[in-house]
């Protein structure tokens, strides 16, 4: 079987598997968020936190709850890292230095998982398990909760109640993420991913060259699975999913990509169920699917046919990829991880062909909406749909409506603000870094490739992706601070605008659809949203791309 056929089979089987679980998982999540009963464990949590699970919240209260929860998580995670030498299971590691601890805390709370440290040599088991892994669960559940609140805004009429954040957070964690993670972790372990409490000092082996190598084990599988499932991306090891203990074989690689794409796609079904029109969910899934397939295919193409001495000799751009995965499967992983807010890597994007690397960059610039992070992808795509509906709706001669809600000045204000945030952070961040010595000092490469590294770092942080273009030295005060700010603003400002939009939508009544209403479930609309997304992003970032990957890649 040729590598191309294998690559296509790999991708095809993924699409098939995702299609199979789409309905049952989407419907399950719909029931999880819409049900009125509470599990016993959930009641304990509500009592512990002191919330009334049946009281609903207005958008402002919902947003304050998100922020309060995140601030507390941030302080806890910061403290845990700073004090790790005095706590259990530290493996003798030093406390993490302040700027790095801030960066890491923000990174995990915002579901970014940008890592300016290498896990095996910085974090002890306690921080990994009770700090990072816990945030992997709850930061994902926060994203899903916000998405569900926005969907309620579309589904409900004449109310200011958007649900209860604490209930949505708990249910997302307890009913959705934990069960799937548990099962998938067992499967990963059976595939060779490690799960233990080894102290590396006890496990040293003699290398072929005669040296001694300490083997770091740890609770890897449990963290690995939520890293993918919650589109987090923060690896236990510095090598992330390229490390054999995190991602052992070609089929665990397949499973990890499957886990990355699982919830973001299935949430569109949940959305369709909640608004009472499953075809609207299919349409959003179709937009995501079209963009994702186009991006994955292009990445595979660029990685497969790039010119250059080595790629031509071996038939593909093998540099930076693991031979047990191969070039094309790595390309699928790279595209999936940047199309979502995951940022896990099983190959090194810095070593990709310039155009292949540009695709990973462009995927994030899309705002990570195809299918995007858990929850974040859905609300990002719905905001884009709102903007598309606005322009398209005017063209059919009516005040634009989406799902029976009028898109007036208030709605378009919040949608525009949402849309503005990440481009501002990326462009200003990159501009500042390129204009200052401390910014330029981090670059490994000179010329366009160096610029791509910086652009990639700010794009990744602002969009809460977390993958790195490697090469760039980010463990500096400048990058830890700047990227930390980008992550925080890039996460919470959009969330506030999304919730404000949800509040404004929920207050409206429902306009019944007629022949004169723009249908938002047909291929016509799917094509428009995809087109608007690509054109807007291309227009925003083309100048920067022209000086980075395009300058390097076009001959």
């Amino acid at each position, binding site marked *: 079987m040729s590598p191309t056929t294998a690559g296509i089979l790999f991708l095809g089987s993924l699409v098939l598997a995702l299609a199979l679980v789409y309905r049952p998982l989407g419907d399950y999540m719909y029931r999880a968020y819409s049900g009125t009963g509470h599990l016993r464990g959930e009641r304990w949590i509500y009592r512990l936190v002191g919330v009334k699970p049946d009281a609903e919240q207005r958008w402002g209260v919902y947003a304050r709850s998100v922020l309060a929860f995140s601030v507390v998580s941030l302080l806890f995670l910061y403290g845990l890292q700073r004090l790790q030498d005095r706590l259990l299971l530290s493996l003798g590691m030093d406390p993490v230095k302040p700027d790095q601890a801030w960066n890491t805390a923000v990174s995990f709370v915002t579901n970014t998982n940008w890592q300016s440290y290498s896990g095996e040599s910085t974090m002890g088991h306690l921080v990994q398990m009770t700090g990072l892994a816990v945030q992997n669960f709850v930061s994902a559940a926060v994203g899903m909760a916000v998405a569900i609140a926005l969907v309620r805004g579309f589904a409900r009429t004449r109310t200011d109640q958007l649900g209860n954040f604490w209930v949505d957070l708990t249910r997302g964690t307890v009913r959705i993420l934990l069960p799937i993670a548990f099962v998938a972790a067992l499967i990963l372990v059976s595939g060779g991913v490690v799960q233990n409490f080894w102290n590396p000092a006890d496990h040293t082996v003699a290398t072929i060259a005669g040296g001694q190598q300490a083997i770091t084990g740890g609770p890897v599988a449990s963290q690995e699975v939520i890293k993918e499932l919650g589109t987090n991306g923060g690896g236990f090891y510095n090598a992330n999913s390229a490390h054999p203990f995190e991602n052992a074989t070609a089929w665990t690689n397949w499973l990890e990509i499957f886990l990355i794409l699982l919830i973001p796609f299935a949430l569109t079904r949940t959305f369709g169920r909640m608004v009472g029109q499953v075809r609207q969910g299919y349409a959003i899934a179709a937009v995501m699917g079209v963009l994702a397939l186009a991006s994955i295919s292009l990445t595979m193409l660029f990685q497969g046919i790039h010119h250059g001495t080595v790629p031509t000799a071996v038939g593909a751009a093998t540099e930076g990829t693991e031979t047990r995965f191969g070039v094309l499967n790595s390309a699928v992983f790279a595209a999936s991880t940047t199309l979502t807010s995951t940022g896990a890597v099983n190959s090194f994007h810095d070593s990709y062909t310039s155009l292949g690397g540009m695709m990973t960059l462009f995927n994030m610039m899309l705002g990570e909406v195809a299918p995007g992070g858990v929850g974040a992808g859905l609300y990002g795509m719905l905001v884009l749909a709102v903007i598309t509906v*606005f*322009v*398209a709706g*005017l*063209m*059919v*001669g*009516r*005040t634009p409506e989406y799902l*029976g809600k009028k*898109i*007036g*000045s208030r*709605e*378009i*204000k919040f949608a*525009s603000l949402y*849309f*503005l945030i990440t*481009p*501002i952070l990326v*462009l*200003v961040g*990159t*501009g*500042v870094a*390129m*204009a200052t010595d401390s910014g*330029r000092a981090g670059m490994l490469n*000179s*010329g*366009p490739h160096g*610029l791509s590294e910086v652009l990639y770092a700010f794009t990744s942080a602002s969009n809460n992706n977390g993958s790195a273009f490697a090469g760039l030295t980010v463990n500096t005060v400048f990058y830890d601070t700047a990227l930390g700010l980008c992550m925080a603003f890039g996460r919470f400002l959009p969330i506030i605008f999304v919730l404000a939009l949800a509040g404004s939508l929920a207050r409206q*009544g*429902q*306009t*019944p659809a*007629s*022949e*004169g209403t*723009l*249908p938002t479930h*047909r291929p*016509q609309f799917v094509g*428009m949203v995809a*087109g608007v997304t690509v*054109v807007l992003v291309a*227009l*925003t*970032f*083309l*100048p*920067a791309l*022209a*000086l980075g990957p*395009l*300058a*390097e*890649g*076009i001959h």
Partner: protein
Amino acid sequence: MTAQTLSASPAPAQTPTPRGGGKVSGGLLDPGQLLRSLPDAVRKLDPRTLWRNPVMLIVEVGAVWTTMLAIARPSWFGWLITVWLWLTVIFANLAEAVAEGRGKAQADSLRRAKTDVTARRLVGWTAGQAEARAERVGAPELRQGDIVVVDAGEIIPGDGDVVEGIASVDESAITGESAPVIRESGGDRSAVTGGTKVLSDRIIVKITQKPGQSFIDRMIALVEGSSRQKTPNEIALNILLAALTIIFLLATATLQPLAIYAKAGNPGVPDSPALDAHGVSGIVLVSLLVCLIPTTIGALLSAIGIAGMDRMVQRNVLAMSGRAVEAAGDVNTLLLDKTGTITLGNRQAAEFVPLDGVTEAALASAAQLSSLADETPEGRSVVVFAKQSYGLRERTPGELTHAMWVPFSAQTRMSGVDLDESGDGRPGRSLRKGAAGAVADWVREQGGPVPPRLSEIVDGISASGGTPLVVGETVDGSARVLGVIHLKDVVKQGMRERFDEMRAMGIRTVMITGDNPLTAKAIADEAGVDDYLAEAKPEDKLALIKKEQQGGRLVAMTGDGTNDAPALAQADVGVAMNTGTSAAKEAGNMVDLDSDPTKLIEIVQIGKQLLITRGALTTFSIANDVAKYFAIIPALFVGLFPGLDTLNVMRLSSPQSAILSAVVFNALIIVALIPLALRGVRYRPSSASKLLSRNLAVYGLGGIVTPFIGIKLIDLFIQFLPGMS
């Protein structure tokens, strides 16, 4: 519309016959208008005026900056760019100035109608009083509640209601309609408008307007656009445009450090006019920004809004706010009065039902003869129907020499003829036609029988919603009933097609009638409306509107009577007839000067066209950016990275000419689209999907392709200019 003004056009407004296709179009743009508006456009360069349009304000700031740069370091390239940036702003102002100019012409003619009028105010007048002391005051001094007297030949000094008398009034100053109208106290024809002229008789009018707020004052303000406020959709669109502008501003500004870095990495590359060690030159940076921000739609947005109001005025509809025009496009439900809107105002003969022993032809002949002296529309319709259906020649009353005509009167409720065929002065044959009871009585008086079958037919026709007229005759003393004429409502031609169009646009039509449900259903089916409200009282109408609105639907209706006022006020689009009462006019948010209820359909189309024009030009504007990037990005950096020349798909001759071509195209496209902005894009009623497909193809795809061609063509010319290589 440049030449046509309201008062100057003596031609009566278009007859309300529905036009096929329902295409909405506006007046054409007179090229001279562009020149005439140029001074206004230059005046609008004042930043205090321009700040209302942030996109163009940014262009102006950029133009000022490039001017300073061009002065500091003069070059052909710098000056050419500067000139075209200024032209961009002026062209944008021109669009608005032209749109406003059209309104000004109308306002001037209205002002002429508002000449200084002296009013004769009655002091201490009470109803029924024959004489009261009149004092002369200037019209502007009149207050609400003042009573004035107006004689034939005088101008009515202000808006009000006739409280005594009846007069024919020439309202051409307002409506352009030269035929006089009757205004009388009481009822629904009591409202008079200031500035109109009493032609005959004398009326006493109670002033209902506040000083300076007359109908004409409001019309002037509206057509001039002085009171124009941004409409909800316009505000929303402005927000989106502002967001896009901010993004492009940042994309341009942050390009600078990237460019400096890139240039520093390639020290061997010589400086160019676009790029040196200090980064991209200010002039080029401004050019890039201006090309990217949505200048096309930013320039035309206000002109589109003004032109939308103007299109309403051209159809003799006064919209009290732009919001109302916009709401018209959103309407889900149209409430249409049956009489005058769906059916012709009068019932017409539709069938002859003879009694036993009478042929239809004989009945038709008798009906026609007996109706010849009946000048009511119903009577005329009997004559015409008999002629059309039975080939009976229309006879004129003078033709039959021995005939005694009995005209219709309200007392007898009959018309007819006595024929003296033998010429002995004694009528041998008499015919009567009229209300069933009246004719039956007449036959009985003449000693004839009234068969029970007659009342069956009469009741049957009544039950079906028709009006029965009975025809009877006496021949040499023996009387009998011949049969019945069935009069019924006649649906206007083309209404079914119009309602089909409405349905395709997703608009539900509801017929409102005072008829019983049976009749209402028959007419509703015939006309093709979606629903009907029978035996409707004004409060039923109001309840229906509220019910529709609770379901999230927008409702439009027309009305004229005072009892329509609550419903007009409740409806999202309430069109009051100009013939209606002032209460109705006050309650609605539009006034139709032609008082043509069918116009509601056109109003909806104009509203839609306004929104479509905005959406289409926004799409076009954004789609244009793709080509501009392909012109400017390679031009900027091809020196550093020769590979980027691949992006120069238009093969523009030099970096300088590429940038200038993009700027010139960006400016010229504004002028090229002014006619479209004023006229509105082509609109045919159809489903949303079809509309979107078409507009996407024309303005989306067209918006991507057009600038590639346009920029290339401009480059072919300007490459020969100095400073282009």
